[in-house]
């Protein structure tokens, strides 16, 4: 035993253009993807500002700099597919099935109003403000509700698609996880089960290098989290988490694999957490994370990366690319006019609704313990 085993998981990006799933996207799709990146970023920026103004009570787990993962994973889904987002994935709730139309009331995603009502802790939330932050979901919209317990939703996801298969469906499910969460026992139990039964469970690992105050190497023994897939004999892909199209390609591969009945996979998206773990951690994070690491990690803004690609491909003019300069701006710097007006207006509807929505009546605290 003189050398450690060679690694099977490698970045499978280096294919040539013709077979890339992204090439089936229309020019409009490309622009829509950029728009969704703006929306995800604006949502986050807006909430951070609201929180600083003292208008929100909960902790904010910013998805800044990680938006390409959300947009890139959600865009390839069918409406009937399932997802289970966690704390850092708030925009996923409304980005799901955005392709069916931002204003379409029947789309299989939450409305911005519902999501904002949740953030504002109002009764208009799909969970009527009974559990906090990202712990919402919707059976109707095929969004799994999570608890706080990290990785705890992966077995649930497996059960959902098990049932779906029994019902003759062909849905896949995407579960979202931080790299730190992959250390949980239930991560193993669930993926093992899914692999045994070749269930269409796609585990998205948002590897932002930090789990709260703990760096990757103290939570995971291998430099790539995708390596965890090797233990189950399932594909482990690595995507550039700053590049929405690379994420899109990898997820599309995984979806096809899963829908064909070949089973689960893990997609590691390499990224970097822009701020503290939550907004309460911003100041401390500045101490435990080296400044140069932070600068490097934030140097490839997903909006900028996307724009560059769109310009290269001729989908976006240079002038349009410069029009809304949200990229490379912190939450405080970024102004409303750094974003397309329809993005700002969309969010405004959500915020207005949330503010108008009442707090839940106290007696509801005692309700719904049991179903009758």
């Amino acid at each position: 035993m003189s050398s450690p085993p060679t690694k099977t998981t490698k970045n499978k990006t280096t294919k040539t253009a013709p077979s890339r799933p992204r090439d089936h996207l229309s020019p409009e799709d490309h622009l829509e993807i950029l728009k969704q990146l703006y929306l995800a970023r604006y949502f986050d920026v807006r909430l951070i500002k609201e929180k600083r103004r003292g208008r929100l009570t909960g902790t904010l787990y910013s998805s800044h700099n990680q938006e390409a993962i959300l947009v890139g994973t959600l865009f390839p889904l069918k409406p009937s597919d399932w997802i289970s987002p966690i704390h850092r994935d708030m925009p996923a709730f409304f980005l799901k099935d955005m392709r069916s139309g931002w204003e379409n009331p029947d789309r299989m995603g939450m409305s911005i109003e519902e999501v904002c009502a949740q953030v504002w802790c109002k009764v208009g939330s799909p969970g009527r403000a009974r559990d906090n932050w990202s712990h919402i979901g919707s059976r109707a919209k095929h969004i799994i509700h999570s608890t706080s317990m990290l990785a705890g939703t992966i077995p649930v996801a497996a059960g959902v698609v098990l049932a779906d298969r029994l019902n003759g469906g062909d849905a896949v499910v995407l579960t979202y996880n931080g790299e730190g969460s992959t250390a949980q026992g239930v991560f193993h139990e669930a993926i093992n089960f899914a692999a045994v039964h070749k269930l269409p469970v796609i585990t998205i690992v948002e590897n932002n290098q930090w789990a709260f105050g703990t760096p990757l190497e103290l939570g995971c023994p291998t430099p790539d989290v995708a390596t965890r897939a090797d233990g189950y004999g399932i594909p482990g892909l690595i995507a550039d988490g700053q590049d929405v199209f690379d994420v899109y390609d990898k997820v599309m591969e995984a979806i096809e694999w899963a829908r064909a009945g070949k089973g689960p996979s893990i997609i590691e998206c390499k990224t970097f957490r822009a701020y503290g773990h939550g907004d309460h951690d911003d100041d401390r994070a500045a101490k435990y994370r080296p400044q140069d690491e932070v600068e490097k990690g934030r140097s490839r803004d997903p909006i900028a990366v996307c724009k560059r690609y769109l310009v290269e491909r001729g989908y976006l003019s240079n002038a349009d690319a410069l029009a809304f300069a949200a990229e490379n701006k912190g939450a405080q710097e970024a102004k409303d006019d750094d974003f397309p007006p329809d993005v700002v207006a969309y969010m405004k509807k959500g915020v207005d609704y949330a503010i108008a929505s009442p707090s839940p009546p106290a007696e509801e605290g005692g309700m719904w313990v049991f179903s009758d």
Partner: protein
Amino acid sequence: MAATQEKTKKNYLTAIREALDEEMERNPDMICLGEDIGLLGGAFGVTEGLMSKFGTHRVYDMPISEAAIVGVGVGACLNGKTVMAEMQFIDFISCGFDQIVNNLATYHYRTAGEVAMPMVIRGPAGGYGGGALYHSQMNEAWFAHSPGIKVVCPSTPFDAKGLMKAALRDKNPVLYFELKQLYRWSAIDEVLPDEDYEVPIGKAAIRREGRDVTIITYGQNVYHCLDAAKKLEEDNIDAEVIDLRSLVPLDEAAIVQSLQKTSRAIVVNEAPRTCGFAGEIVARISETAFQYLDAPVLRVTRMDTPVPWAHSLERYVLPSVEKIAEAARSVCRF
């Protein structure tokens, strides 16, 4: 001819198996998850025949992963299924604990009623069999303390079948404690009704009527209490024995009614004493029936120890007919 044929009595285990079988038949959306429940038919044979009858897509031999068993069940319920999840021994439920108390039990609450969780988690429980620390537990109190789960514990074949049916038709998660010492104890075999029936969750049964003291219990201790009641006749003590059958929800009315008559009570169960369900009953009595009490309510429980292996040790820590009779005498003397 069939009419004159003598009906066969059935044991506790068969009663559970029949309920599972009939509900699998009745409800095409029901699936079963557990370790060794299919090909083998379960460590005790409770699920024997289910896989060959209903197929591998309704009966799953799961990996040894209690958290995944529960979590997968939660997902299946979320997507329209009814789930029976077996713990090979109820002791191993601790390995799936988080999924039960934080995910399954709270799902309905968190979603303001959007999602129901029709799951029954069942498994062999209880001591008196030399099973030692990890094959003897009665850990119902952990779950009674976790809002959102119903908890039942039948003591007869009739109840075992009827409560299982009720549990599998309930929209809420139900923890179903079965006593492995009762599985094949022929002394309690019963003829079961031909027709479909349920034993409603939340209703106690009076196993023996009496005027002097109420003995509140459930599970296999029911039989220890009945034996103790017989013994107490020698002391001219006429004991009433209540078999709770359901812990959550609890049939408080049955307890209060009995106490109005007897004014004295003891509570018997085999779980560890501190924070066990016996204590809960004492507290409920204090809140709802204090005015009827002529004596303190005493508990006969396991000592605050694990269940040890050797027979001598196990008997020492668990409730016995003698300990029950003695406690009853003591409240009657008060």
